[in-house]
């Protein structure tokens, strides 16, 4: 049973003097527990796909099906973590913010947060001010805030592109481990090929705008992944394959 279904989905936006075709005839389905990365050039409509899944954007033609009873809350983690945190609250209050919105009593919300932090084996200073966090810690907090509502589906829009390289490797690993441990379904938007391949079960490779799916690349990588995978022969083979597809897209 697929979680999300895109059937013949196209999307255009009105612009002065006509329309801008962003997505063209997308067809794909996503299974529960799958990690899918949407990979493509900047401005090709990757974020629009997340908007269609989240429900903020409606398709021009075609249909996006998703069972909103099961997937009632779909947290989105964005690139600009500073603007998505609430600086007037401390780390803990930020992390339990979605729970307090839903009316969960603070005491219970805090207990749930502690449980999550322990389960994921995170070091996070809950009393710190968010503006004193490093970029990596701040984005980690955004991930914790998304996970505390026990979502089954999480959307991520280039979450690590504003974090330095070292931290992006660390966060990427954490994210992968969390997703597998919590059996999350994850849709990840990226323009970093290594990141896309490392995290995914499948990579949707998009063309320039209006974006079509050029290839839905199965990674077939082992379930247990760590940094050593990046230098392994199977990863290199996969990367070469992806690069040759990319080459085709650019020509």
């Amino acid at each position: 049973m697929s979680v999300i279904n895109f059937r013949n989905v196209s999307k255009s936006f009105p612009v002065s003097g006509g329309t801008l075709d962003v997505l063209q005839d997308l067809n794909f389905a996503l299974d529960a527990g799958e990690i899918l990365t949407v990979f493509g050039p900047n401005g090709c409509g990757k974020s629009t796909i997340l908007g269609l899944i989240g429900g903020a954007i409606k398709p021009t033609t075609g249909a996006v099906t998703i069972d909103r009873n099961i997937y009632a809350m779909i947290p989105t983690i964005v690139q600009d973590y500073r603007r998505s945190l609430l600086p007037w609250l401390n780390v803990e209050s930020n992390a339990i913010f979605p729970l307090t919105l839903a009316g969960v009593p603070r005491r219970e919300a805090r207990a749930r947060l502690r449980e999550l932090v322990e389960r994921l084996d995170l070091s996070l200073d809950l009393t710190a001010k968010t503006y004193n966090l490093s970029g990596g810690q701040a984005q980690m907090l955004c991930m914790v805030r998304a996970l505390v509502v026990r979502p089954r589906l999480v959307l991520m829009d280039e979450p690590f592109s504003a974090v330095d390289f070292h931290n992006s490797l660390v966060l990427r690993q954490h994210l992968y481990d969390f997703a597998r441990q919590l059996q999350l379904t994850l849709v990840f938007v990226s323009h970093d090929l290594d990141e896309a391949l490392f995290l995914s079960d499948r990579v949707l490779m998009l063309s320039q705008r209006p974006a079509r799916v050029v290839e839905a690349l199965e990674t077939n990588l082992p379930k247990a992944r760590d940094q050593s995978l990046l230098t392994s022969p199977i990863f290199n083979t996969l990367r070469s394959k992806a690069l040759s597809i990319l080459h085709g897209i650019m020509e």
Partner: protein
Amino acid sequence: MESRRITIYSAIGPGLLLIAWIAFGDVGGANRDLLPGFIETVRTLGSLLIHGQLLADILATAQRWLIGYVLGGAAGLCVGLAIGSSRRLYDSTEFLIEFFRSLPVTAIFPLFLLLFGIGDGSKIAMVFAATVFVVILNAAYGVFHASPARRAMARSFGATPIQVFVRVTLPDALPQAAIGLRTALSLSLIVVVVAEMFIGTETGLGQRIYNSYAIDAISSMYAVILLLGVFGFVVNKSFIACERQAFRWVGK
């Protein structure tokens, strides 16, 4: 907001004022009917304070000012946050707000006399008017410039429009609203004093200034002016200290 220390430089401003006043008034032989010496003024102020003659005036002015300021600030916040949340409401009220904000409140004192009589009502109403428009505009700007990304985040977690407003937009808008409240603080203080000078009253610092001038008690007049200046400085500094404490997160 950067935290600021009191340094030797902080003493330069008051020092310059003091030197200029003493040089011009005490030593330089300025017309005594227009500017008394600094030392004489301080002595007069001390005597007025010690003998309690100023107390009734201070209390009367403070009361008018506080009532007008608090009511104007509260009303300004409510209206400003409301019109900031609705483009239509803002567009339809923008002219009125900008029109009245641009007018010197003291220039339309006949209007206040007409509406509120010559008692405390008209003076309080003038303080209210001097406060409310500045606060409305700043509170509305605060809402306009509240982060759309934070609102989107809250919505993605299922926040209702009221939750988005109360838990995200409002705290985001408050620092700008506080700037309006601070601007209105000194503006309204000026207005209450001028109103007391224009509109007949028995008590009040403005009335005291006017009467002292009328009876040639020029050092009493400057004593009250000195008191007002120092008071305005202290109030403003205290407000800034509170702002820093409450909005440590701003700009970080």
